């Protein structure tokens, strides 16, 4: 069957960025269609009931970066969005002790003081310095990245604004930012702290979603990237969405529909139809065509530039840049249905530990060693694991008395030596369970069901080429005016009427929504 319909705009991909872009376009009166290949929307931000009664935050599991102006503009609270607090992080240690960071500053200080009085003080200063640096960088994120090689008025204006802003920063701040953009997380943390589990735990957020270790240069920036969420309004770091991260997508989709957006699922796009250098619509894999004067891809950059359009339609340097864009996945997920809570040796019984993140990150060495193996194609035998128990935060996530646990794991290389098959996936799941078992010995008997997700599965299920959680690592050479490629960081493409707005675009990945919103704004600017 072949059908044909006309829209003002078509968005390829119903991840949160695609939905947000669609909602903004509809808000501006454009008849907008979202085409999603899966049977559900949300992309990497979905909640699925893999085992009956147990709802998994399948991929993305915590929220901090979602832009508050998007929440307001799209009236997301009216559509069910609630971000519940995830107040603490506990790092269990092998010797039966632990390191905790609680929501209350005085308690956290007291806890850290127990391990290192100097670190307790340094931690205060460190978070102020990082928050100030995040504040200094934030206006840059809100701007469309200017291309320093271009002379168009728009780019010049952007550069001017950036320059004026840069001039308002003190020399100390500029030096600090320059350092943060180039340093390794380990070097940065060594400057500040002495207690290994503290450094290990803090360094972990510098390697999340990268194919790098804490000693690799560039990872300090990722630490900073994760502070961005804190400086907006609430000053709260991480939260957990009601109904899991899928709850965020559901709220956005509901808002988009209310604004008139049409969403088609099970509708994989095969290509963008280009006539005379202009995008005029898309064709689905089944041959259906949809027509519109604007097409935006909210899929990953490889699909956007190398799959949906012919390479001949793009300049060679753009093709090369996108081809070399680093999207190799390094992380996996193990989602576990539990008949009882994991009982941690360091803090026995049910307690505050279960209401926050639990991090297996005893030292920088531990994580760097985990990386060493991944570098050569092996799954880390003792991986970094970030656990959250969503059912402790939102009781609707699991049957009464039972629980679900989300384990984010690094490293699991996309290019595993020997490839990924069922046996390799099973072994990966086993590695994770036995690692957790060292800290919570009852875990194995509590398991009711488990879903193991490798980077290949991320690619297969969520449709992210390469399986990188951010559609491409958040490293300096892949950010700002270089994301996804030099000269093409303004959400436009060489094909007129064809735009790009997802995690692989500026300002990057995470359930943040900025790329979708900024892309929609650029589309509307060009519309006239």
């Amino acid at each position, binding site marked *: 069957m072949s059908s044909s319909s006309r829209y003002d705009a078509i968005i390829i991909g119903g991840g949160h960025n695609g939905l947000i872009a669609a909602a903004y376009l509809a808000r501006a009166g454009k008849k907008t269609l979202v085409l999603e290949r899966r049977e559900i929307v949300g992309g990497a931000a979905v909640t699925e009931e893999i085992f009956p009664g147990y709802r998994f935050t399948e991929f993305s599991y915590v929220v901090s970066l979602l832009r508050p102006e998007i929440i307001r503009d799209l009236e997301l609270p009216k559509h069910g969005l609630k971000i519940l607090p995830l107040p603490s992080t506990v790092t269990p240690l092998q010797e039966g002790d632990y390191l*905790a960071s*609680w929501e209350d500053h*005085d*308690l956290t*200080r*007291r*806890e850290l003081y*127990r391990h290192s*009085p*100097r670190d*307790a*003080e*340094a931690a*205060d*200063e460190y978070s*102020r310095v990082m928050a*100030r640096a995040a*504040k200094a960088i934030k206006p840059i994120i809100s701007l469309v990245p200017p291309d320093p090689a271009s002379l168009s008025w728009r780019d010049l204006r952007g550069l001017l604004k950036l320059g004026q802003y840069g001039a308002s920063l003190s020399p100390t701040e500029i030096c600090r930012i320059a350092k943060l953009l180039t340093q390794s997380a380990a070097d940065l943390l060594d400057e500040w702290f002495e207690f290994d589990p503290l450094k290990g735990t803090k360094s972990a957020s510098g390697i999340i979603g990268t194919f790098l270790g804490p000693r690799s240069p560039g990872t300090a920036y990722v630490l900073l990237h994760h502070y961005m969420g804190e400086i907006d309004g609430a000053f709260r770091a991480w939260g957990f969405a009601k109904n899991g991260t899928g709850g965020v997508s559901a709220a956005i989709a509901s808002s988009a529909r209310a604004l008139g957006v049409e969403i088609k699922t099970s509708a994989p796009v095969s290509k963008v139809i280009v006539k005379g250098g202009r995008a005029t619509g898309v064709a689905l894999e089944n041959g259906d065509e949809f027509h519109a004067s604007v097409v935006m891809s909210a899929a990953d950059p490889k699909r956007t530039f190398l799959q949906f359009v012919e390479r001949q339609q793009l300049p060679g340097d753009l093709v090369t840049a996108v081809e070399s864009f680093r999207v190799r996945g390094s992380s996996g997920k193990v989602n576990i249905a539990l008949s009882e809570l994991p009982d941690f040796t360091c*803090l026995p019984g049910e*307690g*505050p530990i279960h209401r926050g993140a639990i991090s297996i990150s005893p030292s920088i060495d531990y994580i760097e060693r985990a990386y060493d193996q991944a570098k050569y194609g092996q799954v880390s035998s003792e991986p970094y694991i970030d656990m959250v128990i969503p059912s402790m935060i939102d009781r609707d996530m699991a049957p009464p008395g039972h629980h679900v646990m989300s384990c984010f794991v690094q490293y699991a290389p996309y290019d595993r030596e020997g490839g990924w098959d069922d046996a390799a996936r099973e072994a990966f799941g086993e590695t994770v369970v036995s690692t957790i078992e060292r800290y919570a010995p009852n875990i194995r008997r509590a398991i009711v069901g488990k879903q193991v997700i490798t980077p290949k599965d991320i690619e297969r299920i969520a449709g992210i080429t390469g399986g990188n959680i951010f559609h491409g690592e958040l490293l300096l050479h892949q950010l700002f005016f270089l994301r996804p490629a030099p000269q093409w960081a303004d959400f436009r493409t060489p094909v007129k009427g064809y735009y790009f707005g997802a995690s692989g675009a500026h300002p990057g990945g995470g359930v943040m929504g900025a790329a979708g919103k900024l892309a929609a704004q650029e589309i509307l600017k060009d519309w006239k």
Partner: protein
Amino acid sequence: MSDLYQLKRTPFHERTSALCLPQNWRRWAGHIAVGSYDLTLEREYWAIRNHAALIDVSPLMKYRIEGPDAMRLLDKLTPRNIAKLAIGQVYYTGWCDDEGKLLDDGTITRLAEQAYRLTSAEPSLRWLHMNAVGMDVRITEHTDQVAALSLQGPKSRQVLNRVCDSPVDGIRFFRMAENTIAGRAVTISRTGYTGDLGYEIWLDAADALPVWDALIAGGNDYGITPCGILAMDIARVEAGLFMLDVDYTAATHAWIEAQKSSPYEMGLGWAMALDKPGFFVGRSALEREAAEGPRWKMVGVEVDWESLEQAFGAVGLPPQIPSMTVRASLPAFRHGKQVGYASSSTWSPVLKKYIALVHLERPHYEAGTRIELEVTVQHQRCRASATVVNLPFYDPEWKRA
């Protein structure tokens, strides 16, 4: 372990918690501290001004700095001339970053030839260590090991003379001496945060309860009264003493330059020993500021009672007086233009005046300047006339005598 989910308790907790019937607890440097033992502050306040108030000040951060370079370190860190600090003497001081902006303030006590105690409001271990690089000095924090009581009020000397093994008459203002209470070794300094006659008693945390009990028993005849930190907060404004995070922001906490304060701005010009030899942190910035004069200054302001009466009278109300120190920022005006703000304001029960610590821009901070302070009358913002005065507001002769 579950104790670690709570704020810290002071060594006197067993006694203070039994007395804190209104459950009026406040936070103080990671501890819970008694806000008041009564539902109102009157009795505790008047104990400070008329009897002897016993205040648990254990949460103060305390550091012991000792070794051949202890003096050098403190001389480098603070603008005071530490070489002149005699054994048994106490200096009050603020200390600054490189740009001459205040980081914190506290006291330095010379305990022995090469040993000092530093108190501070904020944790300072990192700052001390960073500046001690290459020095032969040992720095230890003993906040938890050393309990501290402040005994404030005109009768405090008599109370101590009754309970201590040796009389305290010989301890001059800002001096300290060793003594014994209930068989426990204590050091007693003639210091405090109330602007009255008063002493601070420093002791081993393990000795806290017997020393407290001895003071309460021996002080009964003099009206000794356990007193919370809210009554002290009124007394300290009367004494013109400022508080970190209320009246100024530590330079390391400031988000923007305008939030930082210099010691000159806070009225600490008297403590700046610019004539001392050698480098100290912030020296060149402070020298510049000394030459130019500070752009801002924190001063005392007395609000005209008649003006308050008029403002409230206009809507048929008598003046509404807050029952404790107000820490909200209140704009201050001169000739219709905002020239500053109050950071602490309170009704002074002893002076019967509404007083405030006000930060004013040059040239409006000279004593005698007439300004206006914002007051809210029946949900409307009004301005009451007020006068800049020299600090402290209240300075009884027995304080130093």
